[in-house]
């Protein structure tokens, strides 16, 4: 480590030049350097450490873990500059709209498919479902809804065109043949299933 001291100052600090030979400004500087040297000498010494090690030992912050550094990087603000030509901006906007826009829920039907509308009036019911071979007779598969709570439940189901047997299950336990069906068939278990004929939506 080197310093560009005035040689006279250097000599005075080393005791080679009598300080009375110095100008008042030079004498003041020498006294300040002496004071600084004494202050550093009084600093508590770490065993075996140099001055640099001792000072850095005190001012060094504890090491951060990689996770902590990554978290700080994530949560600290960073300037981001995005340069786009307007035409690209428009394309990106159109693509986003196309991706996010949802078409009305009108399913595509095959040639020999139709929509069966199941409607039932059960004013006291808490739940109504339609069951048939089309859902393996599982009451949880096709629930009817009564959005306006008027006791009229309905569901629209896509089925192959043709006749279909069905029943309603009220409150998960009461099996009822649709009283409005007008067409019934014995189910082989001592009851009757209602029959609905589903017409194809597309004409043949």
């Amino acid at each position: 480590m080197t310093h560009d001291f005035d040689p006279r100052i250097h000599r005075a600090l080393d005791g080679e030049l009598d300080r009375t030979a110095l100008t008042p400004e030079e004498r003041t500087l020498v006294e300040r350097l002496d004071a600084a040297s004494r202050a550093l000498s009084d600093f508590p010494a770490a065993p075996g450490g140099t001055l640099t090690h001792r000072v850095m030992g005190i001012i060094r912050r504890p090491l951060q873990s990689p996770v902590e550094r990554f978290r700080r990087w994530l949560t600290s603000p960073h300037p981001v500059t995005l340069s786009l030509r307007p035409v690209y901006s428009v394309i990106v906007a159109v693509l986003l709209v196309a991706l996010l826009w949802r078409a009305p829920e009108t399913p595509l039907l095959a040639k020999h498919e139709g929509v069966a509308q199941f409607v039932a009036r059960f004013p006291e019911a808490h739940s109504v479902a339609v069951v048939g071979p089309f859902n393996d007779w599982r009451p949880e598969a096709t629930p009817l809804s009564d959005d306006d709570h008027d006791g009229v439940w309905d569901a629209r189901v896509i089925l192959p065109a043709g006749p279909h047997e069905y029943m309603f299950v009220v409150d998960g336990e009461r099996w009822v043949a649709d009283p409005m069906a007008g067409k019934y068939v014995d189910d082989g278990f001592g009851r009757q299933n209602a029959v609905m004929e589903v017409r194809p939506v597309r004409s043949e």
Partner: protein
Amino acid sequence: MNQAVLFLLLLLPQQNDGSRLAGHVPAAALPGVHAIIARATQDSLPTEPLVEKALEGGAKGAAPDLIVTAVGAEEARLRNARDLLRGAGAPGPYGVSEIQSVSLALARGLPDRIVSKVVGAVRDTAPGFALHAVADLSAHGFVQDSSASLIVAALRTGLTGHRLLDVAAAADREVQRGSTRMQALAKVRAILPAIPSQPVPPGAMQGATRPKKSGG
């Protein structure tokens, strides 16, 4: 080697059927149901209606012996339906829906001779709608033979498929207007094929969903 592959191929549908039935049909009914399904498979009958009948019995809490009886009755009806299709000279091979719709017409009370008459008159299309138009008329008190004659006449004028249901509906409307059933049939026959078609109500498809089966 070939026999082993054939055996595995025969076993595969039964395993699928078995996995659909397990837990949904009483265990006591399963051996009987599986035996009927195996027999149907051997005779190239559709097995899906049999699985559905067993699932129906299980869902309705029917006794095991009643489930086996009902599945057996379904198998007999499917066999009869297939034989009637063959006997009437309907062009094969017969699909599941075709055999099933004839079977359902039989279950709705149409006798074999009426089914044969209608199936014999249907050409190049599935007989399901024609049979169920007759079954609809029969359910509303029309004489079965006269009903079948009307539907056969409609087929000869070129009406097919679900339009035959419109023919039955037109006869019903005539009765509601005060005609006797015989008069109604005669009036509708006189205007064939100019039968008004039932319009699809607007928004009928909105919100419609496809049902899911437990195996799919």
